[in-house]
């Protein structure tokens, strides 16, 4: 049995576009659930999505627990042994309060990769496969989130390239979610049910393409 941890924000949590963090798609409708179904038996998919999660930043408003870096270690240890860690984060780092360019968000993704590589939660204390997923770009119309995400839509379109550069230089897998899904117009930065299906399927194909030798 192989284990994959899906580490993300509200779009991994399954938050419904235009809703609150408590409005959530069902487990089978969220992309990790779709991916689990697509991968089939032999795979244990662990869903770990938190609305408002950043890569490495304590959120002065929403709280320090939104920091993806501080929660990553306990999370990895809780769920070890892990064959694969998929990280899809970045959108929340673009909030105006953090004032970060896309390249800094990518650097922060790099931090998380280092954390995983240092902790080695893979089989036999190895480094597991790591896949960075760049979130789908935000739409220009983000409704009442305009001031919170001031300047973010433009930066969000640069994330894919910046993430890929980081993935290449750290030699980890990379997937651009924007290549298969777009955000829903209801709020401009969450993905809807259909997009969860598309993303889950696409990521299942990416996971398979990594190439997994037969388990002993």
């Amino acid at each position, binding site marked *: 049995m192989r284990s994959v941890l899906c580490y993300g924000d509200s779009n991994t949590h399954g938050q419904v576009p235009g809703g609150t963090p408590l409005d959530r798609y069902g487990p089978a409708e969220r992309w990790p659930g779709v991916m689990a179904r697509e991968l089939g038996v032999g795979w244990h998919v662990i869903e770990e999505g938190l609305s408002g999660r950043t890569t490495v930043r304590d959120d002065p408003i929403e709280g320090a627990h939104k920091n993806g870096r501080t929660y990553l270690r306990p999370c990895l240890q809780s769920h070890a042994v892990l064959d694969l860690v998929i990280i899809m984060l970045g959108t929340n780092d673009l909030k105006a309060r953090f004032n970060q360019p896309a390249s800094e968000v990518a650097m922060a993704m790099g931090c998380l990769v280092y954390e995983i590589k240092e902790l080695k939660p893979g089989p036999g204390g190895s480094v597991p496969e*790591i896949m960075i997923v760049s979130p789908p770009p935000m739409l220009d119309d983000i409704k009442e989130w305009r001031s919170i995400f001031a300047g973010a839509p433009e930066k969000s379109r640069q994330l894919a*390239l910046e993430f890929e*550069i980081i993935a*290449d230089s750290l*030699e980890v897998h990379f997937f651009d979610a924007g290549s298969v899904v777009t955000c829903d117009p209801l709020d401009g930065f969450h993905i809807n049910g259909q997009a969860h299906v598309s993303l889950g399927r696409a990521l299942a194909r990416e996971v398979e*393409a990594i*190439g*997994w030798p037969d388990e002993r």
Partner: protein
Amino acid sequence: MPDMRFAPPNPLRIADRASGLNAVSVRSYNERLVLSLLLQSKDITRLEIGERTGLSAQTVSVIVRSLEQEGLIAKGEAQRGRVGPPTVPISLNPEGAYSVGISVGHRQVEVVLVDFVGSIRSHTVLPFSAAQDTNHPQFMTAIAKAIADLPRHLHSRIAGIGLALPGDEAELELTPKAARERFDALQEEVEREIGYPVYVQNDITAAAGGESMFGVAKHLSDYLFFYLGARLHSRLVLNHQIYNTTAAVSFDVGILRLEQEIRKNGNSPSELWERRADWPSFGDAEIAWQRELLEQMKSSIAALKPFVPVASVVLSSYAPQAVCKAICRELEQAMPGISAIAGNIERSPKAVGAAGLPFSSRFMVE
């Protein structure tokens, strides 16, 4: 001193993606390793690449993604319906790179345009008179035409031009006067006038390289290579390395010899030099010639045997494949334990091999 883990990443590999092949990008050894592997076997998975190169899955993933975005490789359809997860095969993209190959023989100049997997996309034969003076516009025109045969938007994917030149003394004697001086100037001349990098190699070595890269010798690591041209030439290939000797020796049992035999019998040999699918039967002349040719091949193999265990022989030629196959059959019968294979680059093995030169210097591991 900042922690180097958090220094800015190097965006080079991705940043130069859109620029086509003309920007001289230095390829990592691992990228070359993956491309070389794909040239040997199409439709292999990332898992197999990892197993055969010893690279980690993540490293393979980075390389494959980068090469894919550059258009050098293409992903196939996922293979399902077998035990275990579906697999996604990867192959070289034939349209990923192109190259022009030129061979200067003693009777004619051949110019080919080949794609990344060695398929000939355009082929021109110039009679030698046209190339006697290398400034002769026809020679350059033939190269320019080969390039023009490729749609304009693909010109940035031309990896370069390969030039196969004779180095063999006896072969040079067959060519018009001052051939060597002329050949020496060719590289610079073509580079200057056509504007792509030019790679030069001895023509027989180039032909062996062509069979190794695109032809029947793809999967052979050790073999004895024969080239049947005007004369008979040979090269030894060990562990994929072609031994390129400066003391090139050739034997007068080639097609020129057959021509003499045919003339002796009072017939016309003109069909020998036409690049056609088949030769007519030349009767006794051909039988006599074939006997001589086989004797020479046998003695070359026998001479080598105390030093190198030769098990595979490749016979490459522009002569019809049926002729080469017949010779191979005879050779196998005469020498049990030897596997003789006719080359399958039927038109212009030297020129196709020359076209492989830009690929091997820019994309492959030695």
